[in-house]
């Protein structure tokens, strides 16, 4: 079952002088099983959009269908707990939320809260820590002695241990080094392709969008500006400019060469494709 926003509006501090319209009549469908990127400038409403997915925020107007649940403006959804088990939300800088004495205890917290036995929680925790790249030698260590990137892995394992069907990640690679960020993105691709989880990621990094995601949703000033597949999105250079998006390097180079007179198609989205197109251009002139 897909995720469907219908006419959803969210106003922070409604009815006060500080009232702020963060989402404005948003209608949007997220495909089940897809890896979707939510992009847009700082303050555009991306985080507000995804925080509705496990009813952390409730709509001011409109409704939202998440799996078999309907979230509406006027009533608090029932069985919130099971929704939150199905939709795992990883906040920005999730490592700030680690709190247990050991890594094992921290990752077990979620599943135990959702009714798993000590043993089940442990099994799940061990499995998920392994998946994020931390072997059993880490189990009894304090999470606070790890590096920033490792802490973030523990925090993500904690969400994965609840075995959510939908995984929502808010800027999961911010502040990581390039290698750490790549490994993190590869993990999400694996969760999506191998474990068939629906993955939504809020990101500013267009390289990640190009190389890892299937679908793009562009949020601007609380509205959905564009929704399409990644390939179509990056072929539309005019749109990228208009949305003030910093394009991936391969597109920057393609456009720089086009300006210098190379006739390159707009479908050059990888270094290899770009190199081949340059080759055939050069040969044409021989």
């Amino acid at each position, binding site marked *: 079952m897909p995720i469907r926003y219908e006419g959803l509006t969210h106003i922070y501090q409604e009815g006060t002088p500080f009232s702020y319209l963060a989402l404005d009549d948003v209608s949007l469908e997220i495909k089940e099983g897809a890896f979707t990127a939510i992009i847009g400038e*700082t303050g555009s409403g991306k985080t507000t959009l995804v925080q509705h997915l496990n009813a952390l925020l409730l709509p001011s107007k409109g409704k939202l269908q998440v799996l078999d649940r309907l979230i509406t403006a006027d009533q608090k959804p029932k069985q919130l707990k099971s929704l939150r088990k199905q939709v795992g939300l990883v906040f920005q800088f999730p490592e700030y939320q680690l709190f247990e004495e050991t890594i094992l205890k921290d990752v077990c917290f979620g599943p135990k809260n959702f009714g798993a036995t000590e043993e089940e929680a442990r099994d799940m925790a061990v499995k998920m820590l392994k998946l994020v790249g931390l072997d059993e030698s880490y189990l009894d260590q304090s999470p606070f002695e790890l590096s920033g990137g490792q802490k973030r892995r523990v925090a993500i394992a904690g969400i994965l241990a609840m075995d959510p069907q939908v995984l929502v990640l808010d800027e999961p690679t911010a502040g990581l*080094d390039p*290698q750490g960020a790549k490994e993190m993105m590869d993990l999400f691709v694996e969760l999506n392709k191998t474990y068939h989880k629906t993955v939504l990621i809020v990101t500013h990094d267009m390289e990640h969008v190009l190389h890892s995601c299937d679908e793009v949703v562009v949020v601007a000033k609380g509205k959905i500006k564009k929704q399409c597949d990644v390939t179509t999105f990056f072929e539309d250079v005019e749109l990228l400019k208009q949305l003030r998006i*910093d394009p991936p*390097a391969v597109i920057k*180079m393609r456009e720089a060469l086009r300006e*210098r007179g190379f006739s390159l198609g707009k479908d050059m989205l990888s270094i290899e494709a770009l*190199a081949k197109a340059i080759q055939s251009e050069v040969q044409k002139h021989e």
Partner: protein
Amino acid sequence: MDKITVKDVSFSYDKERDALSHVSFQIKEGAYTTIIGHNGSGKSTIAKLLIGLMKADGGSIEVDRLPLNEENLYAIRDKIGIVFQNPDNQFIGATVADDIAFGLENHQIPTESMQGIIETYAKKVHMEAYLESEPTKLSGGQKQRVAIAGVLAMKPEILIFDEATSMLDPQGRSDINHLIQEIHENETMTIISITHDIEEVAMSDHVIVLDQGKVVMEGHPSEILLKEKELIDLHLDIPFSLKVAHALQKLGMPVKECTTMEGMVDEICRYAMKD
């Protein structure tokens, strides 16, 4: 002339593993030096030692030929300004003007001359239109620019950026990178930037590469950034332009390797014209 001399410095947080192990390097006066290395390589530890937040276990650090010790600590700190990673942790004023004024107040600058100084430095970071804005109304990149103005107003001889762009969105990152370039071109100060951004490294005069607390490579970015195998072994990124050069070479086009996008575009055009 060397502005900073780090000689055989070691440091350990827990006495088990060295965060820095026998590190030596020099920073030239007026140069723009970048320090790279993956998370946990010891980059930020160097910044903390340079400003005397922690004391090295062994070796020596000299700033302007002054040995860094308790006696010289404040004289050396007066020479150094530092901009940290998290924009929210270093905004302390109620408005942009207040924030820039904070350091000036600590240095007992008379109030009547303060307004002029604030405006001058707000202009340098292109934030003059926001003097009365509150921090909640600013983006991360704007807050970092204000932090830089506050540091510049102290007229430091050395400016350190400790991953100052890693928490910013692409727009903010590119704004700050341009600003660092501007400062480097227009001011005389020595700049050290600890970064993950390989495109920023390509703009600097000198790069120091750290791994497991040791200096493993050092030199001009146009040489260092071409060492693809070494960089990948160190879990570092290589410039996009280099990847393109290699893809073209693989297809039998002997283009030269470049470390910047502009350079590579020129090189491809030159190669195409020659044929």
